[in-house]
């Protein structure tokens, strides 16, 4: 028996549960009564749907930007050499990631709601209640909260593995600490930034749970739209076309990010 045949059961499995399902989606996206059509894609061009896509992209972009802004210093500080008990701190950052993300999002609902702790605090200091839940900012907030660790860890693991002698060499050659950061540390950490960005941006574009819970269904994101087509409206054809558009979007962004990554792994694993 040839050893390559060991992969046969898996090959068959993936054929049935990955390849065939994708083909069914492709089939529905282009199928019309008795022929091939592009109508489902044309329907997407309506301003309403394009608006939903741009809104999702915009929100995911903001989320990625905020995660990078707040996460990069975290990773940098965690990786700094004089940080005592750094491993312990890293574990502290990991733990929330292991909580079920629905529970974490639900936790924010209890904080942000009209009678929630934040509002009661605002009332107490005399600012008065604000409407926090079911706003665009609540959704953005929930996204950042859920995905921030995904930005911190890839950057941290690149920084902590990088050769510290390079930084010392730059210092010896007369660079001040900001220059060392700009010219040595930052460029070295770029692969981590790239994988962090993809690990935050992809799930942020495709999520439908967070906007539904924190946005209360008042903001439709692209993931919501797809879920709606299959589970509420029952328009599988349009839903399939939207799924294909989302897949194309993800593959294109992965491709672009891959280009920026100087030492990209060829197997494309996200971890």
């Amino acid at each position, binding site marked *: 028996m040839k*050893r*390559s*045949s*060991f*992969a046969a*059961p*898996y*090959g068959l499995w*993936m054929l049935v*549960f*990955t*390849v065939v*399902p*994708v083909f*069914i989606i492709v089939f529905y996206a282009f199928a019309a009564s008795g022929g091939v059509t592009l109508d489902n894609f044309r329907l997407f061009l309506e301003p309403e749907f394009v608006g939903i896509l741009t809104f999702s992209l915009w929100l995911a972009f903001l989320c990625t930007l905020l995660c990078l802004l*707040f996460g990069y*210093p*975290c990773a940098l*500080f965690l990786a*700094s050499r*004089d*940080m005592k008990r750094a491993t*312990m*701190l*890293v*574990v502290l*950052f*990991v*733990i929330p990631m*292991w*909580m*079920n993300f*629905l*529970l*974490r*999002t*639900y*936790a*924010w609902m*209890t*904080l942000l709601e009209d*009678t929630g702790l934040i509002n009661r605090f605002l009332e107490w200091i005399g600012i008065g209640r604000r409407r926090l839940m079911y706003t665009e900012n609540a959704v953005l907030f929930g996204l950042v*909260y859920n995905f921030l660790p995904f930005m911190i860890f890839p950057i941290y*693991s690149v920084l*902590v*593995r990088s050769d510290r002698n390079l930084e010392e060499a730059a210092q010896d050659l007369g660079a001040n*600490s*900001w220059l060392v950061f700009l010219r040595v540390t930052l460029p070295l950490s770029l692969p981590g930034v790239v994988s962090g960005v993809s690990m935050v941006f992809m*799930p942020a574009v*495709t999520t439908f*749970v967070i906007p539904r819970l924190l946005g209360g269904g008042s903001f439709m994101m692209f993931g919501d739209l*797809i*879920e709606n087509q299959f589970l509420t409206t029952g328009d599988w054809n349009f839903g399939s076309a939207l*799924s294909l558009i*989302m*897949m194309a979007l993800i593959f294109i962004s*992965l491709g672009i990010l891959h280009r920026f990554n100087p030492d990209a792994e060829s197997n*494309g694993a*996200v*971890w």
Partner: protein
Amino acid sequence: MLARRLRMTYLIVILTFLYAPIIVLIVYSFNAAETRAIWGGWSLKWYAELFRNKSIMDALSVTITVAVLATIASLILGTLAAIGIHSMRGGMRQVFIQVTNLPMMMPDIVTGISLMVLFIFAKVPRGYGTMLLAHITFDAPYVIFSILPRLRRMNKHLYEAALDLGATPSVALWKVIMPEIMPGMVTGALLAFTMSLDDFVISYFTSVRTANLSVLIYSMTRRKVPPTVNALSAIMFIVVLTLLLIQNLREVRAEKSKPKGVRSV
């Protein structure tokens, strides 16, 4: 660069942001009052009620059994596949690698929907079984990508030496290759298990009759959330905390006994 104290303060601020909602949930889990608006004193009644709540207990057992079964199945399927793929060359290998990449790159919602459409198409009622099939499908690639690097790093002459010394191919596989890839299998199994435990999106689409915890919590947040969910969060948090601390202590001890490179997270 910046003063140590300043950096520490920043890290603590971010940690507070990450932990605030979790701590609030835990505190509320001891609240005797029914609503979050009132503090009715300390009480353990939601914990008692949690263990009497049939739907939550059912969902918990679904979550755990699906994760265990999916991990075992994907470990067997994935280990065999990794050994097979490793011995492939050229186009065939590329096809397998790409097909393995596909579910990892595909958005969860598309994976979930495409499987849902498949099950509806094949007229298979969506429940425990379909959820398990879906979990095996998204778990197997993690196992494969954890084992393949191990195989690549392995000295291929070891296997040939075993054959020269009279081992049959299956004995050589069992005695030489398996021990070499064991750490990869452990990593893969752990990844698969956690992916499966935490999954919401794919379970949501591939099962209507059976709910795992994520799906149950989602359906609860759409209605009025019973305070038992707070107790559930508190317990889950404590379990995760303990497991990670034990794991970390073990690693620290292992690192002390034999110095090795930094673990990537």
